[in-house]
Structure formats: C-alpha cells, structure tokens
C-alpha cells in the first residue's frame, strides 16, 4: 500500500493534517477531486470562465468548461474564485539550515542532506501559493553543491521531493574572501583536477585489467590511459568527482578523447552578481561542456550585460530586488533601472523569485509579477515568469507550471485575480491533496484577529 504514490500521499495527509491545520484526517486522500465554477488561468492558454479542473490520483486529467465530474469525485465549488497553477520558487537556499558551506569547492554536497521539512519557510510557501521550491546552495561559493526540487508539504525529504537534484550551484562572482582571479582559477583548476583524476583512474584500471588477465604492461602511460578509458566503471568514481563528471555530461574524457557515459548529466545554476561575470560564466560553461544545461542567476547589475545574455540565449533567474539602484560616484545622482524590463526586451526566458522576507509585498511572487506588469511587461509573460518559465528551467515543464491534462495537480485558489493585491490565497492543492486552507491557517488568522477574539482569562 505504501509503495503506491497514492498511499504515500495518504500518509502525508494524515500526518500533515494533524500538524498544521489542527485536524486529524484518517485514510488516503480522495482518488478524484474536482474544482468547479472557478475562473481558470491555465497560463499555457486562454483563461476559462466557470471551468472545471478534474484531478485523478494527483494528476490533472481534464480542464475545461464542460468537464463531466464523476460521481465519486470530491467536489470543491470555487465559484467566484480564480484557479491558478502552483507557483515555483526557482532558486532559494531557504529550507536548508545555512546558505553555504565554508569550503569553496564542494560539488559533492547535496541540498537534500540539509533540508528541514519542519521549517517555517515551507509553511510560508504554502501561504503564498508556492508549490514547488528549488532548494539549492546560496551564492557565497565556488561550486556549492546539488540542489533539489521539493514540494512544501511532507514530513521527510523523500516525501517532499518532486525531482532529484538536477543542477549544481556554481558562482562566477567571487565568494567571501576571494577575488575574481582566484575564483576563476579555482573553477578551472577543479575541472583540470577532474581530468587529471580520470587520467590516473584510466591508467589504474588498465593496470588492474592487465593484472586480471595476467599480462604484463607493455605500453607507456599515455597509451595505457587511452586503453583504460573504456574500462572506467561508475563505481570507480568517488563522491568528489562524480558530480563534476555529471556536470560535464556524465561522460568520461581522458586525454581529450571521449569515453563511456556513466551518469545522468547535471545542469548548473551559475550565479553572476556583476555584469562582468556573465562573460566568465559563459566561458567556463562552454569550456567544460555544460553550457547547454546552464541557467544564469543574475545580480542587479547584470542588465548591463544584456548583449552577452542575448548571445548566450540561456534562461535567466532575475534577482529578488527588481529595481537596481546606483549612485553616480561623481555627481551623487541616483539612477534606477527596472531590471525585468531590460531582460524582457531582450526576449530572454526569465523567472522571478520572491523578495526578502522583510518586505511584506515582495515576498509574494504574484506581487513581483505585478511589478513587471506595472512597468510594461505583458501580463501573460509576467504570469509565465512565476509558473511555466521556472518549470522549463528546471526541466519539469511536463509536470509543473500550468493547468493542463497530464500535469501534476499543483493548484492555487485565489479569491480574485492573482495580480490584484487585495486577492489572497485561499486554498492550495498539491498533487490533488488540499494542502492549505486560509481559514484554518492559525498563525495568519491570529494576525488578522482583534482584541475581542482573544481568549479571556477565567476569573477564579
């Protein structure tokens, strides 16, 4: 029972239900769920007025105006509300305990090991309608480690994981204590060291093979390496080098020649804090064969490198601070630039991330999208930037990012239009499970209570 997806989700609901919402739910979630009467914004197509979304076993099976609702479906009447795809936070370290490891080059680290399902951050994700979170080490690193895409409900990392880590975090901007020369040198050195390691490994494997066959070594080291190239097995590669090899495409390369492909390739999220880092990031990615799987994470100043970004034509993640402010050192004049506008005009695929926790509005992805609309970016593009674009970047566009049949049932019910600040997240569905209900959100309701609601002390 537990090995079926539904069974796992059932346990999820039972435990989750008792934790945050104060109600104990026994048994597995309903097989079929229908949301009827709401205005559906699929993001991948035109909005549907008074439509129905039918969900079966955690997947969307039908979306439309005239969808037949099976008799045994749990029906949620969402008339007057808006049904929106679950939003995706495409790049955050939150969910882990600390943003970065002290050591600069740590490709073997995995965000899954640091993920803490009980963090308040995940509860906030639900509250704000983010149903997919890409947890990945932060920017203060050279090579930080592998990320992981999770859903914000679940009691264990396994329950939370949507997809295995597919991206390594790399930073072209120097981490604390480094300057750029050192940063780039360490990056290049890492890959050179990988080549070196593979060469030695090939040689070793050739020698081992010969020993097995009880033959003598007859050739020089160079030839031995060439022959040993094909003999390297997946279990020979140690932790330190496995992810680097995966970054390069999983393929063994010795002495410049290709060998067997041992692992699934890994992509990279490369952080470019300054405009000059874009060129360096593209260079490193091209030199080491992972450019086609690179996503560039931009800092505020990177809009100045829009030409290079356009040439690179890779997806970009925008900074959480959408207006870049700089003071002219001579005149003291302050110039503000709205970064998404520049990026949009270059027709790049971009994603928005939530702002810092301190800012009440910027924490909401819908507000970040509204700010883009404010400065002239079309509404559809802005909505895609918080749903479909992040899904595409993460390679999960088959499963997330829009309301289409076949995709995972990640849905957010808004009380009004998502870009209207007065509308709030009322319900969140994750894989067809009702994961969040605003009226049962105890913490939020407390912030909205009045003195009259306070429990009075009993007079003894």
């Amino acid at each position, binding site marked *: 029972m537990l090995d079926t997806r539904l069974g796992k989700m059932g346990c999820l609901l039972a435990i989750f239900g008792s934790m945050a919402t104060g109600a104990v739910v026994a048994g597995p979630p309903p097989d079929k769920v229908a949301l009827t009467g709401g205005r559906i914004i699929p993001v991948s197509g035109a909005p549907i007025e008074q439509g129905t979304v039918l969900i079966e076993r955690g997947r969307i099976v039908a979306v439309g105006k005239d969808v037949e609702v099976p008799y045994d479906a749990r029906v949620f009447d969402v008339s007057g509300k808006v049904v929106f795809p679950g939003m995706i936070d495409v790049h955050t370290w939150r969910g882990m305990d600390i943003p970065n490891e002290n050591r600069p080059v740590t490709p073997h680290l995995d965000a899954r090991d640091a993920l803490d399902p009980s963090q308040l951050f995940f509860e906030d994700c639900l509250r704000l309608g983010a149903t997919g979170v890409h947890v990945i080490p932060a920017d203060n690193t050279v090579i930080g480690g592998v990320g992981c895409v999770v859903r914000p409900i679940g009691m264990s990392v396994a329950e939370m994981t949507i997809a295995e880590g597919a991206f390594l975090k790399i930073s072209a901007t120097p981490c604390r204590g480094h300057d750029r020369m050192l940063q780039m040198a360490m990056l290049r050195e890492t890959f050179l060291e990988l080549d070196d390691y593979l060469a030695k490994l090939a040689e070793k494997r050739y020698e081992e093979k010969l020993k097995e066959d009880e033959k003598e070594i007859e050739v020089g080291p160079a030839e031995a390496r060439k022959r040993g190239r094909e003999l390297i097995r997946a279990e020979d590669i140690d932790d330190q080098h496995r992810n680097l090899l995966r970054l390069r495409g999983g393929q063994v390369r010795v002495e410049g020649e290709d060998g067997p492909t041992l692992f699934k390739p890994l992509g990279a999220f490369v952080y470019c804090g300054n405009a000059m880092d874009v060129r360096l990031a593209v260079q490193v990615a091209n030199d080491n064969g992972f450019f086609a799987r690179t996503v560039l994470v931009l800092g505020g100043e990177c809009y100045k490198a829009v030409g290079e970004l356009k040439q690179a034509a890779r997806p970009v993640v925008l900074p959480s601070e959408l207006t870049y402010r700089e003071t002219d050192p001579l005149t003291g004049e302050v110039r503000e630039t709205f970064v998404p506008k520049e990026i949009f005009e270059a027709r790049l695929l971009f994603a928005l991330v939530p702002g810092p926790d301190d800012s*009440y*509005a910027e924490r909401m992805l819908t507000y970040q999208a509204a700010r883009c609309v*404010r400065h002239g970016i079309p509404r559809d593009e802005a909505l895609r930037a918080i749903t479909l674009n992040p899904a595409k970047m993460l390679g999960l566009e088959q499963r997330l990012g829009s309301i289409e049949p076949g995709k995972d049932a990640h849905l957010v019910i808004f009380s009004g239009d998502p870009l209207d600040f007065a509308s709030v997240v009322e319900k969140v569905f994750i894989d067809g499970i009702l994961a969040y209900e605003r009226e049962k959100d105890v913490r939020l309701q407390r912030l909205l209570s009045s003195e009259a609601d306070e429990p009075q002390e009993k007079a003894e």
Partner: protein
Amino acid sequence: MIAAALDSGRGLAAGATGGLPASALLVRESFLAPTRTGIPSRRVPRAPCPPVRIAVALMLVLSAATSPAAADDTDQVIVLKAGRVYTVSGAPIDGGIVIVRAGRIEAVGRDLQVPEQARVIELADAVITPGLIDACCAVDFEIPQAAFSRLYSADEQPSFWRTLAELQQRRRMDEDRAIDPESGGPPSFTTPEGLAAASPPNLTWAEHASEVTPHRLVSDSLNLFSNDFARLMKGGVTTVYVSPDSASVIGSRGTVVKTAGRLSERVVRRADAVKATMGSDPSRRGRGNVLPPGRGRSAPPSFHTRRPTTRMGVEWVFRKAFYDAQRARDGLELHGADMPPRQALPVLQQVLDGEIPLRIQARMQHDVFTALRLAAEFKLKFILEEATEAYRCLPQLQAADVPVVFGPIYMAPTGYRRYSGEADRPRLNTPKQLADAGIEFALTAQELRDEEGLLRQGMYAVRHGLSAEEALRAITATPAALLGLSGQLGVVAPGAAADLVVWNTEPFDATSRPLLVMIDGRVVYEE
C-alpha cells in the same frame, strides 16, 4: 554652494525668497580672503577688495537676471485631464479636469472651460490624487555626522539588527558568568561586535545632551538635498512631517517639508509638534549606566550612559518636565533631580497651553496607557505615533479622542523596531479596526520606502479590510488635518496647494506607478 544655501535657509527663518542672497556670497568671500598682517580674520563680513567687489556685483546682476523668482511658470495655467480625479474632499470625478494657477488649484470639475494659453497635460485612463502626505516620516538626511551608524552603512542589512541583538545577549551572558576587566582600549564602532560592546548602542542621530530637548528643531539638521526626498517624491509622497528620533523622552520638534520643488518653498512649517516617547527607546540609552561594559570597572561612565534606564524613569522625566514648566509659569522655584533645561520651559508651557501640538510615540499597550494617563494629568491633547498595539487600546483611545498616526504595516518588524522588541505583536488589520472604532488615523511608512512606502502601506491596508476611499483619506486629507493644514493640502479642491500625483491606474493596484508628480503647481517628476 550647498553650505551657502543651507546657511541662507537658516539665516532667513521663514519666507526666504528665491535665489541665493548676496550676503551669503559676501560672507564666504571674506572668510577665505587672507589678511595682510597674518592675523586670522574673524568671520565678519568686510568690504572685499575692488576686483572682488566688481565680481560680486557682476554675480548679483547675473543672479537677479536669472533669478527663478521671475514670474515664468507661476503665471502659466496648467490643466490636467485624466480618467478619474479623487478629490478626497468629495466624490471622485470621472473624466475630471484640474486647473492649476499660481501654485494653487483653481478649479476641479468635469466640464470646465480650459483657459487659453494653458499648458494642457492630457493622460487618458490616468487617475489623479492629491499628493500623498506622510505624517511621521523618518528621513535619511545622508549627513554622516547626523546618522551615526549610517556612516558605516552596516544597518542597511536587516541581519545587522539581529546580529546586534544576539551579540548583546551573548555579551550579557558572558558578563554574568565571569567578571573580566577588559581594559584593551576604546571599543571599535565599525563592527557589530564593537557596537554591541559599546552598549548602549548609539544608533540614532538624536540629541543626547539631555532627555528633554523640545527647544531643538529637526529642521536644523534637515538636508533638503538628500536623495531620500527624491525617493519619497517618486513614490508619490509630496509632503512629509519629518519626525525626530525617539531617543529622548521629550525630544525635538518636527518639521513639515515638501519633498521636491523650489527650495524656498519646501519648508512648510519649520517648527511643528514636540515629540515625546514612551517605552524603552529613551530608556535603552542608559542601560549601561553603572558599568560601561568592555572598558573595565575603572573607566568613567561614557557619554552614552545616562538616565532614564527604565520605563518608570521615562514617566518621571516626562512628568517632571511638565510639572516644572507649570511651576516656572507660576513663578515658583525649580528644584530636584532631572530639571529640564531652561530653554525647554517656555516650549513646554506652550504645549501646556495648546499652542504647540504634542505627539507621543508608544508601541505597546501599557505604553499607550501611560501616555493617556500622563496627558490626562496635564490636560494635554496629543497625537499617538506608531501605536503597534493600538488594537488592544481601542476603547481607551476612543474615550480620549486621540488621533493616531499608525504604521508601518508589516508581518514581522525590521530594523530598529525589531531590535527594540516592542513591535512583536502586530496585527495586519489594525487600520481597519481603527476605522471601525471611529478613531481618526493616518497611515505612515516611517523609514520604509518603495515597495513598502506610503502608497503601498495604503495598499496593504486595503488588502486587510480598509476601503480604498478610507485608505486614500488616511494618506492625504487626514494627515493634512493632523498637521493643521486641512484644506491646504491633501485634497484636490479649489484653494488647495497644487500638490498632485497622476497615476497610471487605480493607486492601490499593485500595477500602479506615478506618471507625473506636481508640487506647488510645478511638475517635479514626469515619466
């Protein structure tokens, strides 16, 4: 040039005319001119030598010719046509026209005759509102000497306050555990550790000479060229009450200024309300009074250590100051501890007489009650500032008829507010609760800007129950009324100052932005 301009602003108290007066130039000339005898010259204007006199005369002639006081744009009539005009004083007008002449609004209506030779600004689908007024704004003057920690710009990051609080906590724990006389030189103020060691932290720009300083004016440290004003103006805020810091029990007097426009017209009122503070902000300064930590027992108390150290002390200082003011008025001798400075007494007497308004900042419920009690004792009328826990004091505020300048709205506090520990029990719907209780309130963003600025505070209030009309009033007409400028500011009505903002859509939409900002009939920002 800037120094000269500020000098001229000071020297000519109210109603300075446009352009730089020649006397300012003369003063600088003489200050710089060397003497023949080698004795340093005093800073007294002397007649400059002939070539300089000619140069000065030339400059005077030029300045007179190019003086902006020339009647160019003040006579011109500006007409704004928009999709909707929110007058705040009446119903909104669709397809409204606003006629501006000589810095004032001449007419507002639907079918008005546009005068000839008027500059017509037509923005279809746009929305016009009065310029926003922040009734309790903490402005960053960008003067290094005035803002201690801004010099090191460490507090720009929110983690700074958290780190500081943690370090203070750790330091206190270390002290409890072992007495370790550290006499290793003066503490460094450049790192959070150094600042924590130099407790109490001097993290504000307030006057520290005494706890009672109502004779001081915020306008004396006002830097009208600060970029913060430009930032406010671009957010649609046209008038601010620059609030003093909360470091003193009875602090200095605030000032009302416009955020942009002609320099001579920017200061609306130089000396406004006296600010008093209840709670821990004034008493936090004196906490290390007995033992300045980190410097050893033998070191004398530093400048940063002073009374009061508790809320009892805060209440005492307030009562003593007003009590002494009453005694002085009755011709009685003053004695006892904590006498207010002599210059403070006339100001306090004017507060008692109701000639100078009083504002009291109080965040927590018991501090609000203290304020109400003290005001009742001295029969003072006051405006309550910040009032994070106003939702707990609604009946009392209603009964005492106290207006509130409430804000900012947040889920979790940041900056100094967070560090104070007094703002940990906010409610998102406090403005709605104030409105329902019939309490007059204005919204403020204090030190927050941009996406948390005054307009967005109104947006948050609308999200949590306030109607758009009430929220707009809370950032226009009500703050104007609290500042005693009803009818002059905060409304789009004939006779009011022409402070207007043209928005691309309804102002409380998330997609709104200002297309045009006008102050005193002059367009100060246009997209």
